[in-house]
């Protein structure tokens, strides 16, 4: 069972803001993660204070040989902050989060994370990566949101080239420069200083990320961007109280709307996370029984056979193998 050793007991998790936010909660950190659909100033301004951007991408290898390697930055072997190498494939999301959290000044966190950070101080990135991936409590926090019957990419024994297909890279400000922390690279990459005024570090980070995306041929890259930011709920709540006591009703109404938005997003995350933790085999079975009792199972079965037949014919026409989708 070498596959289990490769994944070190770390299951593959979904790269979803709800999953990251739940992980942050378990780490005792008052931050959340939001999807970022655009890098324009307006979108970013709404998410302030913003501590780090997580650039996550699935690279389609056959269409690009060495693109993405051209980098404007300078490797910094003397980086004094927190940097750990990714030593276990499936841990990449959690590792990216830790690399970000470890470099946010005076961040409040739970005792376990604080201890891990102080324990690994001064260690080289490889050792740090090993310490992180052998922390049982962290692995449990990470695995808590993977489905009970998830098929891990590692354990499917796919060919080697797809192993590194998922990749997480953190961009954040550190000591006046924008840094790129990539657990698969030897050192953090320094992308230069940024002006304190205006958008600050985000302006530089945007240039770097956009330049990076541009190095891939069109269609060779699927990516998404996540924003690591302060949990806005306490601030919005405080603002609301202030506006209401000052009698500023229309401003208060705007905050109420933003709070409602945030809360419905949290509800959706809670809903999706509970679906992620659950094994749905029982429901699938129950639904089939219900169809059988209602007398429609035979009909839908015949239709399903027809659907499958058509699907297989179409695939054959396209000359594809009988791949599962």
């Amino acid at each position, binding site marked *: 069972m070498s596959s289990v050793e490769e994944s070190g007991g770390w299951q593959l998790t979904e790269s979803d803001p709800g999953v990251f936010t739940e992980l942050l909660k378990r780490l005792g950190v008052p931050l959340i993660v939001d999807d970022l659909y655009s890098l324009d100033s307006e979108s970013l301004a709404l998410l302030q204070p913003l501590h780090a951007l997580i650039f996550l991408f699935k690279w389609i290898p056959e269409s690009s040989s060495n693109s993405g390697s051209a980098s404007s930055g300078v490797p910094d072997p003397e980086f004094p902050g927190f940097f750990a190498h990714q030593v276990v494939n499936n841990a990449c999301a959690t590792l990216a989060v830790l690399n970000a959290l470890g470099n946010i000044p005076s961040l409040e966190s739970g005792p376990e994370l604080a201890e891990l950070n102080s324990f690994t101080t001064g260690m080289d990135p490889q050792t740090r990566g090993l310490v992180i991936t052998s922390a049982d409590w962290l692995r449990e926090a990470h695995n808590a949101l993977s*489905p*009970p*019957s*998830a*098929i*891990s990419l590692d*354990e*499917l*024994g*796919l060919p080697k080239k797809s192993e590194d297909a998922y990749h997480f890279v953190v961009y954040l400000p550190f000591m006046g420069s924008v840094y790129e922390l990539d657990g698969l690279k030897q050192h953090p990459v320094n992308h230069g200083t940024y002006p304190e005024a205006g958008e600050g570090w985000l302006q530089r980070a945007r240039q770097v990320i956009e330049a990076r995306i541009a190095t891939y041929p069109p269609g060779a890259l699927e990516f998404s961007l996540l924003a690591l930011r302060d949990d806005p709920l306490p601030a919005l709540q405080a603002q609301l109280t202030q506006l209401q006591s000052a009698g500023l009703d229309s401003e208060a109404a705007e905050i109420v709307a933003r709070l409602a938005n945030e809360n419905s997003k949290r*509800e959706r995350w*809670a*809903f*999706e996370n*509970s*679906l*992620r*933790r*659950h*094994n*749905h*085999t*029982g*429901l*699938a*079975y*129950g*639904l*089939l*029984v*219900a*169809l*059988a*009792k*209602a007398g*429609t*199972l*035979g009909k*839908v*079965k015949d*239709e*399903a*056979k027809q*659907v*499958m037949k058509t699907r*297989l014919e179409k695939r054959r026409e396209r000359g594809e*193998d*009988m*791949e*599962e989708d």
Partner: protein
Amino acid sequence: MSEYLLAFKAGRAFRNEGTNRVEPSPTKGAIILTNGDDGLLHFIWKNRSTNQIEEDLILFPTDASFVKVSQATSGRIYVLKFSSSNQRHFFWMQDASDERDAKFVENLNGLLQDPEYTLDWSSGATTSAQASTSQVPQATPEQLAQIQRIVQSMSGTTQPPAPELSLTDILTSDNLRPLFTSHPELIPALFPHLPPDLPIPPSTEVLERVIRSPQFRASVASFDQALRTGLLGGLVRGLGLPEEAGTSVEAFLRAIQEQADRGDSMETD
């Protein structure tokens, strides 16, 4: 010697301590179930080359069960296990054809449950009817873990033969929405299968939302794949279905229909 209740060709298998794999021993043998002179049920393994009885276990009704070892690389390894102890005895089917394996096992288990059990060799569905109730049995964590292992052990390199149908095309929103509308009385029985920690109370809308979710769809796809391996006999027994139901998607659906039909006939209206 006493009366034979059941006998079939089977060899023994042993757990290799080094690899923790169960490996079949080539010695020819037979499993024999008898009502001993002592009036007790005996599970005997006889060496067919020497004709010696090498194993003679006294069993108490309902204590033992004979189940397929799903993780085994060869599909015909079974384990005799006991609810009263951790004792395990492994065997492998030696009949030239595996066609009757399921029948031997079903009859053997029938006798292990009740020595007065009437053997059934009909090829159709089992008659050891488990009374079907509207209460749907929940799969245990062990059974779910078993599915997980099976799904994970499937290699991406071997392609299964083209399937005839997929559960993913049956459990679609389009198929289920009319069901909820036409048979609202079937809905509450499904609520216990929803995640226990949903932030909102169960309702038809919640059910539809779950069914549309990528997480549910992924579960159905995994279950479908696991059924296609034909190795889910143990799991489906836990759902109150005969073991054959775990041999394919088609067999699973057939067994569910039969279970539902029996349930319906027992309901008075």
